[in-house]
């Protein structure tokens, strides 16, 4: 179980990660979301002990990463940048990694096959495309068959086929009972793959909750009504016990309304409708709304109390999730 305790990282004046505390739930895919510069990569580097926290700490099964023997057998990571020597072959890159953690050599061929790089195994990485480089990085992460996998924006720059491949891979890894921690700045992408969600903005935790709960809260549907007879419409709605909220351009919206009921109601009262349309808020909008608030909060001169973390206390409410 990976736990972050009040993790803070400062680069000079820049507060990249700000008092971040959360747990990565085991055996599921957790999406780690935040806009550019939110501190996702920095957090991942601190989990691997590559960057030293200014304060706070990360524990993996209660220990620091640097205290783990053969750590690749526990956590496999694909970090942001392609980090392969251009003059080394894919095979040799995986070989030195395997040797450093005492992984049998045969495993190198296995993971090359798994990511579909067998044909170019003896080619130097210099000539690899972005997608091939990404596959090699994923092969490195899977090399020692770790229980936990961490991917920093694995779909960045990939073509649709590559994106689909990664999406399916993550699902498969989770179905094998592995823990997957994957960063992204696309909520729509995460909605397809992640079971759990951690959102940060400007280094601060904004949300930590199951994906299903996020979708439930944010897939607010409503019916939009537009009419030249506003007064009569509102009276009719009021009479039927329905509440309308003002929408864009003089329209009205009825949350969780039923278009059939509303259409009948308008007809019964002789109200002409120019629009009767069901509305569905997108998850992407909800995500942008959430992070936009964090931006405002941080730019404000007088800082109000930090907004409550979405889904805070979820871990405590859910028995049996602790390890």
């Amino acid at each position, binding site marked *: 179980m990976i736990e972050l305790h009040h993790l803070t990282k400062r680069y000079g004046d820049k507060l990249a990660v700000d008092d971040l505390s959360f747990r990565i739930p085991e055996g599921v895919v957790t999406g780690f979301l935040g806009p550019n510069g939110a501190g996702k990569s920095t957090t991942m*580097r601190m989990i691997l*002990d590559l960057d030293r926290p200014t304060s706070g700490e990360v524990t993996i099964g209660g220990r620091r*990463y640097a205290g783990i023997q053969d750590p690749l057998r526990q956590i496999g990571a694909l970090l942001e940048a392609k*980090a*392969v*020597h251009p003059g*080394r072959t894919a095979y040799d890159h995986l070989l*030195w990694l395997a040797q450093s953690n*005492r992984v049998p050599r045969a495993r190198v061929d296995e993971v090359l096959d798994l990511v579909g790089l067998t044909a170019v195994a003896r080619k130097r990485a210099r000539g690899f495309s972005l997608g091939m480089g990404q596959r090699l990085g994923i092969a490195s992460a899977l090399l020692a068959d770790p229980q936990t996998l961490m991917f920093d924006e694995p779909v960045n720059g990939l073509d649709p086929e590559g994106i689909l491949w990664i999406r399916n891979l993550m699902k498969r890894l989770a179905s094998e009972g592995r823990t997957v921690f994957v960063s992204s700045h696309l909520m729509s992408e995460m909605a397809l793959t992640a079971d759990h969600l951690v959102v940060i903005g400007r280094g601060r935790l904004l949300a930590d909750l199951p994906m299903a709960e996020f979708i439930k809260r944010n897939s607010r549907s409503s019916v939009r009504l537009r009419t030249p007879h506003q007064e009569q419409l509102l009276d009719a709605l009021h009479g039927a016990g329905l509440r309308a909220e003002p929408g864009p351009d003089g329209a009205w919206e009825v949350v969780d309304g039923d278009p059939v009921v509303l259409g009948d109601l308008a007809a019964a009262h002789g109200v002409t409708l120019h629009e009767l349309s069901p509305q569905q808020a997108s998850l992407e909008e909800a995500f942008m709304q959430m992070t936009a608030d964090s931006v405002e909060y941080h730019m404000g001169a007088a800082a109000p109390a930090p907004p409550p973390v979405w889904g805070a206390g979820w871990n405590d409410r859910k028995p049996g999730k602790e390890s």
Partner: protein
Amino acid sequence: MAVFPAVAQSEWTKIRSVRSTVWSLVSVFLITVALGLAISLVARNNPTDFTEGGRPFDATAISFIGVGFGRLAIVVFGVLAVGNEYSSGMIRVSLAAVPQRGTLLAAKTAVLGALALAASLVTVFVAFFVGQAALGGGLSTSLGAENVLRAVVGTALYLTLLCLLSAGVTVMVRHQILALAILVPFILLISPILTLVPVVKDWIKYFPDQTGGAITQVVPTDDLPYGPWTGLLICAAWTAAALLGGYLVLKRRDA
């Protein structure tokens, strides 16, 4: 904790699997032997050119002329073997695999040192015998002659120390071009120039190339305030300081 032999094996794979590191080490041999051979052939035909100023004819020094350039190649090898981790961003992968940074550096140093020593020993013995053969019976010397074996083995040790010194400096500055920009002038250019400046002359004698270079000479050319073995020790101290500096930087800084 990381297991040292496993990490060392992995470091060996890293070095042997990149052409530039392999070739820089091979070029130590080629440059040193080829230049020694060429100059030995010249000396065979014009031996008096090599005894100017009343100096005795030094057959070992003539066959070792190439060492001056071989040093450059072994410095490049030390810089590349470490620096390519930084230039490619691979250092993060290396440290994620072996987060015990001291162990990683120790394994790298051990493998690098062993390779540099093996390559240097082969180089100096081949350069010596090839040079002596080229000089011919009348001029050549033998390993049994006074100070010759010391100079031959000492030269290999000197080259090995320079390689590790370069590795240490590269870990400290974390950039191969920068490391070369520091090392090449420091080791190869500054001291020959600065020894001509009287004020700093006494200081320059304690630089790595001067201290380590003392043991390479059968017939001392400069008057140095230390013997050949003491000189080599001072050079080893420079190397140790560079590696320690590298260790501290690696330990403290974000990767």
